[in-house]
């Protein structure tokens, strides 16, 4: 499992990112965030505070929203990671419904918090497709946005929930 390299002891990990399996050799002190951005080139996941306070680096780890700056790459061994790039893939030829809703509702301004916001929202909707506004606000309470004042983000997430409701109603 271990091998010597120029950088000391490296560890072999197997990790699934956005449905694709990777066999990688990583330094123990590499965070999952740096692995995604620097090694895999998935720069949609943002590095904000790098200490677990801002939520810009949110990814889903085995379906749960976590700050990827607080996870070692070695700890993600054998686990499933979803990033904003994977969310877009789920949308097929177009954007994912959450991404569309953010664009259409003006929930994006500078955009730096958006990937994290969308992943936190996705974690909520995967578990609970029709959350209350309080549940939405609680789900994104770890994601800071300095532009929008949050209201449009909450509205964007609500339109996706309402869209689901409309679809499930018999015509």
């Amino acid at each position, binding site marked *: 499992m271990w091998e010597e390299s120029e950088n000391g002891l490296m560890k072999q990990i197997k990790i699934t990112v956005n449905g694709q399996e990777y066999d990688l050799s990583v330094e123990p002190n590499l965070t999952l965030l740096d692995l995604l951005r620097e090694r895999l080139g998935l720069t949609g996941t943002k590095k904000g505070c790098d*200490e*677990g306070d801002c939520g810009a680096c949110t990814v889903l780890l085995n379906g749960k929203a976590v*700050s990827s700056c607080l996870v070692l790459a070695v700890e993600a061994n054998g686990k499933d990671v979803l990033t904003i790039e994977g969310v877009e893939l789920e949308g097929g030829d177009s954007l994912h419904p959450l991404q569309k809703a953010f664009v259409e509702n003006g929930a994006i301004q500078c955009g730096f918090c958006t990937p994290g916001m969308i992943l936190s929202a996705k974690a909520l909707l995967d578990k609970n497709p029709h959350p209350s506004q309080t549940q939405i606000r609680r789900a994104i309470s770890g994601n800071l946005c300095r532009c929008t004042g949050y209201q449009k983000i909450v509205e964007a997430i609500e339109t996706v929930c309402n869209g689901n409701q409309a679809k499930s109603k018999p015509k």
Partner: protein
Amino acid sequence: MPEEVRQGAKPLRQSGREEMLLPEFDYHEPSTLEEACAVMTALGKCAILLAGGTDLLVRMKKKDLVPDHLVSLGSIDQLKELKVSGRKVQIGALVTVGQIAESERLGDVLPALCQGALNLGSPLVRNLATIGGNIVSARPAADLPPPLMAYGARVILASEKRERTFALEDFFKGPGETVMESGEILTQISLDVPPPHSGAAYLKLGKRKALEISLVNVASFIHLNGPDGVVDSARIVMGAVGPKPLRAFSAERLLAGEKPSDHLFEAAGKAAADESSPIDDFRGSAEYRRTMVSVLTVRTLRSALARARKK
């Protein structure tokens, strides 16, 4: 902007990116508790245990801690078990705060603990942070110790040689300091399901609702001798107003044997405030904190009473 102002301005980040990188360490990943105990004994003080990492990795990035070895507990499934059976609740040290916040079984038997879990950090932190980590870091403002102490929780420490059990309130010595010895691992938190006619509640006061450290927090537990009876026993625990979570013994004595009333609870709140020893800091003054101890004590007692009367 005038030149002198720009020169005097602080850089946006005082520490550069380089400094936020994690220091180098050797990583160990034992797959059983026995193996973990052996590794911790062999490495001694050069090693730190890694659980959720939400506290440890931040402190390592800031170079507050620079361990030679990290010993991850993440592969030890035994530590991830959460069992509610009969009159016992056993929570493995690696159970996440998010699991506790969302557990319906725990919400039923230990609602104040779930309130504590829901108040910790943010969802992104709760999905990583563990109950064991929140205890061993021994932060005076931590969210889980007050409700756990109010419920009379015990902690189990394992090492290569022996196993020790402590009442949680005897576990803490001061900020960041506990009775744990080198080579020991906190494995489990064990509680009794509270008896009928008992209830507990937790409240946290911060400046905002998420990602917040407690200005003051209080957990109260009361046990009545019947549905409309007098208080048989009470435990009140105050956080962030002393070097470790403090029991409000004088308030508890005031309550014992008395019929619950607003008047009684207010007297208990005042007694708790007198027993707290908060400090002045940039988050709030000692005087404000002491006053809030009284308010939170009254509110948690009311809510605990309502729960006690329902069960």
